[in-house]
């Protein structure tokens, strides 16, 4: 029972780390604000939440579970708001979308 729990918790944490890795790679490699926003918001929702679910499985029914649920709630609320604020601000400031331009693919700064 305990071994199964450890395996599930470890697997969930690994999934979370994988999403963090993918999200960070996307943040570094994507060309403009909007495309960068897309992978980076996945870090908090999928990545951090998988890690938290993994830790919740690991801790079982305890006070730690309660704290983890609260952390997950605040994380989901704040990261979604953050993504909204960045995306909305970029849109309202008329930051140009990235387009493929022949051979030149832009300097990667987007703006």
């Amino acid at each position, binding site marked *: 029972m305990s071994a199964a729990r450890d395996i599930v918790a470890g697997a969930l944490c690994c999934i979370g780390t994988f999403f963090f890795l993918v999200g960070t790679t996307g943040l570094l490699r994507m060309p403009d604000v909007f495309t960068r926003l897309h992978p980076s918001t996945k870090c908090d929702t999928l990545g951090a939440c998988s890690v938290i679910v993994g830790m919740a499985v690991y801790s079982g029914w305890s006070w730690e579970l309660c704290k983890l649920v609260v952390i997950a709630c*605040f994380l989901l*609320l*704040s990261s979604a*708001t953050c993504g*909204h*604020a960045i995306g*909305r*601000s970029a849109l*309202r*400031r008329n930051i140009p979308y990235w387009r493929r331009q022949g051979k030149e693919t832009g300097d990667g700064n987007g703006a």
Partner: protein
Amino acid sequence: MKRVLSLFFIAALGVLLLYVVASMPPMGDPQTPTATHVIPRYLERAEEETHTENVITGVILNYRGYDTMGEVTVIFCALAAVLAVLGRERRGRIRGFVDRSPVPSSTIVRTMVRFMVPFIILFSVYTILHGEISPGGGFQGGAIIGGSMIIFTTVFGLYESSRRIPQKVRAPLEGSAVIVFFLVGALGLVGGGNFLTYAWPHAARGLQPALVTWLTVLVEVGIGLGGAMVLISILFAMIREEEEIALTA
């Protein structure tokens, strides 16, 4: 060519760093000087000597009390320097909520900040008061309060946030870290002990642990409040509403 060269340099640097890491003593090795010098003494005796369950707090506030008092003074000096150069905050002529950014702040962000800031401050109170038994303490809690006010100020503007923590409240509290630290340290002298040991040798034996614990908590609260106010005052001092209005009007 450039790529190959930079790749070569990165690889060389990596090898060098890995070599240095490999020559370091293994993590948690009990034979290293750091683990054999004062740390065993701290770990074994900290709880009975400082009456704080969190050894780090015991070390920071008790064993190295002088050092921490110096740090607190440095933070206060930073505020004094910022205020000497920039002066206190200057609020704009317009009273009430004015959004000066080119993009008006969204309802979602404002609602979320209004919802989150009380929880952040609650968490910082927990961090400050719990620093004596768990990770946390005055510096961290103060930084969290400062961070919450930075979020609030970026969303609601200087007028709204400086109305909630007016200068009249902030000015006396800015020095609270230094003052509380010094006074509590001096209390040790009054009680017949040494400066900053929090211990009163002449007090009743049973009273001693509670006394030391509560004085440590008092210092934590002082550091937390002082640090928070210093951060908020520095933030406010950097905002110039008058000039911004002149630019946009």
